[in-house]
């Protein structure tokens, strides 16, 4: 393998391994309550 191919393989392994190994921290989000129904937008020609 030429140097470019070796580097490409290493880069790909780093990225794919990263996706498998990185932890996921979900953010807690408060649900948004929509109290008023939105009025339809007025569109003038």
């Amino acid at each position, binding site marked *: 393998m030429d140097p470019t191919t070796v*580097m*490409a393989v290493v*880069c790909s392994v*780093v*990225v794919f391994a990263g996706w498998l190994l990185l932890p*996921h921290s979900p*953010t807690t989000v408060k649900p948004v309550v929509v109290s008023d129904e939105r009025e339809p937008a*007025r569109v003038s020609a």
Partner: protein
Amino acid sequence: MKIDSGDTAWVLASAALVMLMTPALGFFYGGLVRRKNVLSTIMHSFFILCLISVQWVLWGYSLAFGPDKGHIIGGLEWVGLNGVGFAPNPDYAPTIPHQAFMLFQMMFAVITPALISGAFAERQRFKAFVLFSLLWATFVYDPIAHWVWGAGGWLHTLGALDFAGGTVVHISSGVSALVAALVLGRRLGFGKQKVEPHDATMTVLGAALLWFGWFGFNAGSALGAGALATSAFVVTNTAAAMAALTWMTVSWWHKKQPSVIGAAAGAVAGLVAITPASGFVNVMGAIVIGFGAGVVCYLAIQLRERIKVDDALDVWAVHGIGGTWGALATGLFATVAINSAAANGLFYGNPKQALIQLVAVGAAWGWSIVGTFAILKFVNLIVPLRVHEDEEVIGLDLSQHGEPAYASIHAN
């Protein structure tokens, strides 16, 4: 010389693809600003499409590609497209009408100053923006385009490789964006209040349309419908995808979640970086270039935040640094197996090419800094660069254009 109908069709279609990139950029940027500035941000791109289309046919094309004057600039012989007809020009594209080449190049000239507009978003006066864009296209873009692509240009003669605009488009715009951000100063409340993108979906759509148009940008730069265009198409897609994957991985590691806007920005960074290399590297080279773009552009944003420069939409980090990486990487990974008319890079036994690329990068950085600084100072003598504070507070959509983007919703 005989006109090739296939080549002509591909270059004209590519010109249309590249044209689409400028309004797509408007949407990419428009989603990233606050809702009170979205129309003005989109207007920057749309207006430049109109402004530079006219500038290019009047004098821009002649300065960039006209008969060489001292290896620095094109002459005025082709002003108003005088002498630019339908017969092919053997210096630039021997199988398509000269006007088809001129049109394709016009779309590059259009998008380049539009890229800069991301740096001074949410605070530049529209009148100053118009004057700056016209002067910048004439005194920064046109000379650099001549140096690199013009017949007789000094970097072209030196052997610098830039297939589709790493130096001409991305370094020039990205570095100029940094200068503009420093000269204009920070937005009100910068660093004190968090500025959130008002519509991430608009940004992702803009990025997707940019990716689509970039096939014309890079594969169209083969100026023919053949193997080189196919190779450029493949490496363009590969680098964009690899950079998006890399950016997401780095941001996931850094901020614990894979960012959607990060994925879009990463793809654009990869597209930027592969631009100068797209006609010279193979698909393995494209993977390394995409990986490098995802890492260095992400790090450049962290640096920009740390030194508190308000390049509002990170034009320097993505285009300036991404373009610099791409131009240098071309000197590493170029191979004549892809393009026999070019040269090998460092990893294919030609270290001299890496040095030539370094000279081209330095020249593009230097002229962009000097030219942009001088133009901004000159424009400021005629019309203030920034809007008044109260205009900035109510937003540029209302203060500069008298129109809200969204009916009855003006605030932030």
